[in-house]
């Protein structure tokens, strides 16, 4: 079965039967997952930072690195698999972990999640499920056939959202 592995900033979309999308070890990064029940297309982007303004020249080579450019780029990839528009799409989010710190000094994870939600809202979408924050890293696997999003983390049994 085809397994498409996304690195940091990677974007993937597929409607191939039996295929899976996977991204490893999200720390403060987040995975934005989009499911299109109409065309049975699944898509995922591994976002590292909230805003491309920090280094605009990186967008040309790796738009998925940033929430503001990664999510529109994911829609574009899904369109190539037949997805028509944002209407009816199902969104899920995972990741955004942080170090133990009551003051949230380096809150990149939280900012990534907020930025992703803001971009999604601009498309009229909101996540139906999310597993965000806390102090553990997450690996995300997305199965095309079932649309099930499986999460794993070292030392924990797998779970789904």
């Amino acid at each position, binding site marked *: 079965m085809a397994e498409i592995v996304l690195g*940091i900033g990677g974007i993937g979309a597929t409607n191939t039967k039996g295929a899976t999308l996977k991204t*490893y*070890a*999200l*720390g*403060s*990064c987040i995975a934005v997952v989009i499911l299109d029940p109409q065309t049975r297309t699944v898509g995922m982007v591994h976002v*590292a*930072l*909230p*805003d491309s303004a*920090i*280094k605009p020249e*990186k967008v040309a080579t790796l738009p998925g*690195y940033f929430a503001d450019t990664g999510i529109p780029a994911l829609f574009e990839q899904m369109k190539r698999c037949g997805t028509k528009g944002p209407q009816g799409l199902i969104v899920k989010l995972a990741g955004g*972990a*942080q*170090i*133990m*710190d009551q*003051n949230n*000094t*380096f*809150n*990149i*994870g939280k900012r990534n999640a907020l930025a992703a939600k803001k971009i999604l809202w601009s498309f009229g979408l909101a996540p139906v499920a999310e597993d965000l924050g806390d*102090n*553990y*890293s997450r690996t995300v696997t997305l199965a095309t056939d079932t649309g099930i999003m499986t999460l794993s*983390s*070292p*030392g*924990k049994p797998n779970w789904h959202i």
Partner: protein
Amino acid sequence: MEKKTLNKEVLAAVRHVPLLSVAAARILDLTAQVDHTLADVMAVAKNDAALTARLLKIVNSPVYGLLEPATSLERAISYLGENLVVSLVLEDTIGAYLNKPLPGYGGGSGDLWRHDLRTAIAAKEIALINRDRCPPDVAFTGGLLHDIGKSILSEFLKDGYQEILAELAEKEVVDFVGGERDLLGIDHAQVGYELARTWGLPEVMQMVIRHHHEPSLAPEDLKPVVYAVHLGDIIAMMGGYGTGTDNLFYRLDQRYTDYLVVGPEQMGMLMLTVEEKFNETVETLQMR
């Protein structure tokens, strides 16, 4: 088993670790000195035939795209730079420890080395912003070595991480190192420190390893570099390069602001720079 017995067993394991090679010990000594030069590193490396051959092979790999092959060690080292030379020296001499799987942390082969390299690059970037008080090359080497204790403690931790995760969930311990101490009577920073002493590493490296989770306990003059590695470690974990079951269960010491200038707004750019430099370094190191 009693914590005290385990503690003794761990320390006995440290005493059985082979010593560093002469070249590695000399190079680590040199890089801990603030006023050393690349020429000093070269003088040590040229006495090690295997290291010289390896450096030449790497510098002549396609990654560097040299028009004419480098045939001298001087040229090779000036192209590669000190940090890469130190990384190679460490990988050659203690690679068995840096690359081995960490079953007690659920980490695979190479996870520790990638985490260490990422920490080293991040610690150096932080030191570069604070170079008036924090020597970047010392921060880099400290980053490479900071978690070496995990390679020993992992054997003793075994499935104990489950207990630590449960203790964390119940808030019986405040972080993963606290869990290690609770379970085994010793944590990976202390084990690393004992290993560093056994190897005769310079004091600054011993202190970085010992205090990287509690930098406020380091000697005052070494605090900037220990804090740089502390933050570098956090950047590596946030970037998804942890070592396994310990995840991000470590505390940020807020007092870093007394010693280093790293604003929360700089964190994004730091993470991006670290990511890019890490990818470059990994590409180079794999070209053997």
